[in-house]
């Protein structure tokens, strides 16, 4: 087989999900044979993403997969790739070209992920039979990130869809997407709402969501009074694995590994067969619960 070099430009490469994604990409490359994957972590820095594009185009790689730190840079990177004649694949977050065309995509639909989380939370809420005026929805996410904004909008819509009757009040908790920050900030939110009996919690990632849930239980809210739905599942599963009674009632499991390997496979196939990239490859997401997580996720590290 013809040797192929793929660049995988990732945001937030130190987050567990993206670490998995990188690992998946590398495993797939090995499986395909004669494929080199060059992983570049650009944090949350759009400018670094542009620089990484420059570097990789300069290195004349055969294909680029990008998890953009901000979807707004889409037109710019699409343009750069087109000028260099290198196939570009959007990973995890969709990218559009300057004329509004979506480019080929592998990953999850951000809004849809949020929607599933909201839906799951709404169902649990309806089942619990809580009253709207005794319930507060705590949405913990990093406010400046477009991906988080998408998920948050999806979650709200999903929750509304699942319930009948009044919508509980929603409090946005601006975190830096870390557990500790979510924990610290949620502590204060509890103070501000002493009359709330029941809490629904979701977040942009597992860190935010579990941090908020921990803060609630530290504030004396019983596990039964919390419906926490994680996003990712990698932290939520720790409570379940330990058999702890927890406010984390469900999580949307997304496998970074799957996306990483799908992205590499798609790019390599297109390069080798000299065919255009498929428009959309959406990876599977599953709602996991304390009951089924083991069969879906396998293990919890």
């Amino acid at each position, binding site marked *: 087989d013809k040797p192929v070099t793929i660049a995988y430009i990732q945001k937030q490469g*130190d*987050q*567990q999900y993206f670490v998995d994604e990188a690992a998946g990409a590398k495993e797939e490359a090995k499986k395909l044979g004669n494929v080199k994957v060059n992983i570049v972590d650009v944090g949350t820095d759009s400018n670094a993403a542009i620089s990484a594009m420059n570097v990789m185009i300069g290195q004349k790689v055969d294909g680029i997969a990008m998890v953009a730190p901000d979807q707004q840079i889409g037109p710019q990177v699409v343009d750069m790739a087109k000028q260099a004649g290198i196939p570009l694949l959007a990973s995890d977050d969709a990218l559009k070209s300057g004329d509004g065309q979506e480019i080929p995509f592998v990953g999850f639909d951000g809004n849809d992920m949020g929607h599933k989380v909201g839906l799951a939370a709404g169902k649990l809420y309806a089942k619990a039979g809580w009253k709207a005026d005794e319930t507060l929805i705590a949405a913990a996410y990093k*406010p400046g990130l477009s991906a988080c904004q998408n998920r948050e909008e999806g979650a709200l819509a999903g929750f509304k869809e699942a319930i009948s009757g009044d919508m509980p009040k929603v409090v946005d908790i601006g975190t830096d997407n870390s557990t*500790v920050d979510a924990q610290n900030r949620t*502590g204060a939110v509890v*103070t*501000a709402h002493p009359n709330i009996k029941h809490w629904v919690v979701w977040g942009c990632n597992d860190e935010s969501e579990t941090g908020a849930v921990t803060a609630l239980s*530290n504030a004396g809210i019983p596990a039964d009074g919390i419906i926490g739905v994680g996003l990712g599942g990698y932290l939520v599963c720790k409570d379940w694995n330990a058999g702890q009674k927890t406010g984390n009632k469900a999580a949307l499991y997304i496998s970074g590994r799957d996306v990483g390997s799908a992205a590499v496979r798609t790019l390599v196939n297109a390069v080798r067969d000299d065919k255009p990239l498929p428009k959309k490859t959406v990876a599977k997401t599953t709602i996991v619960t304390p009951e089924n997580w083991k069969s879906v996720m396998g293990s919890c590290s």
Partner: protein
Amino acid sequence: MTTQTNESADARPKEGRARRVLNAIGVQNISLVIALILLVAFIGSQNSNFFYTSNLATIGTTVAIVGILAVVQTVVMLIGGLDISVGSQAGLTSVTSAMIFMATGSATAGIVGALVVGAAAGLFNGIVIIYGRVNAVIATLATFAAYRGLANVISNGRAQGYTGTDAVFVFLARGNVFGIPVLIWILILVAVAIQLMLHYTDIGRNIYAVGGNAVAARLAGIALNRYVLGVYVLVGVVAALAGILLTARTGSGQPTSGSQGLELQSITAAALGGCSLQGGRGTIVGTVLAVILLGVLQNGLIILNVNSFYQDIAQGALLVIAVVIQQKRAGGGGVGLPT
């Protein structure tokens, strides 16, 4: 002829007890206290829930980790240094503690291991600075990146283990002693111990001397290198404590999440508390007050449901206001850049 114009020089300040107490707190710190009172009054008037004991405990536990780091950052700044790597050290020790705990099943082993790693990381900082002759800011900027990388490498970038079922970790994270959360006790203990050291021991006085005038300190026979090394080791150990508390609070060892940004927060608190970047000036009381002020501010902004973007603006504005009050009270025009 010996009765010159300066009889006032050795006259003890003639002042009342109240005045003496005020002096002990220091004019700068009084301004912080005033700023704190005003802030508390304002927040409390808007939302009386603020005064719940539970909320005060929330503030305390929230500031505990950054608080102990700010306290040791104060010590580093006193000797004229800076430690940018505290957050990375906390992250590194957080994963270490969790990984050792998972491997051995013993919380003690995890804690001791983390403290040893922290001491080693601090010692390494000190060695690079002293024997490599690398400026403290650059050296700790370098290890800021390096320790973070190391934490990610050993943990493969993943949160490690689960400590939520261990009594020791749970006690650290959620325990109470005499009704006061353990986290707050730890902050109090660290602050008081270091305050006592700075104020009442020759080590502490020598630290002020080293930062105040390194040449004089050296000529007076103070082993500068040993002090600098010692201070950085102290920071490493306390950063490890912070890392252990991070693990306990989040229930798992976090390589970077939760510890990034602690360097800036601890420096902000120390500087707001009156530490000078030139060394030799600063107090633990000031730093702790600043930590509390910043904690109350953040808590208040959330309680008052301020949009998180406006929180940034408010935080910036209040930081400036607190210092302006300080300066106006301290009086004096001053020349050029304020210190």
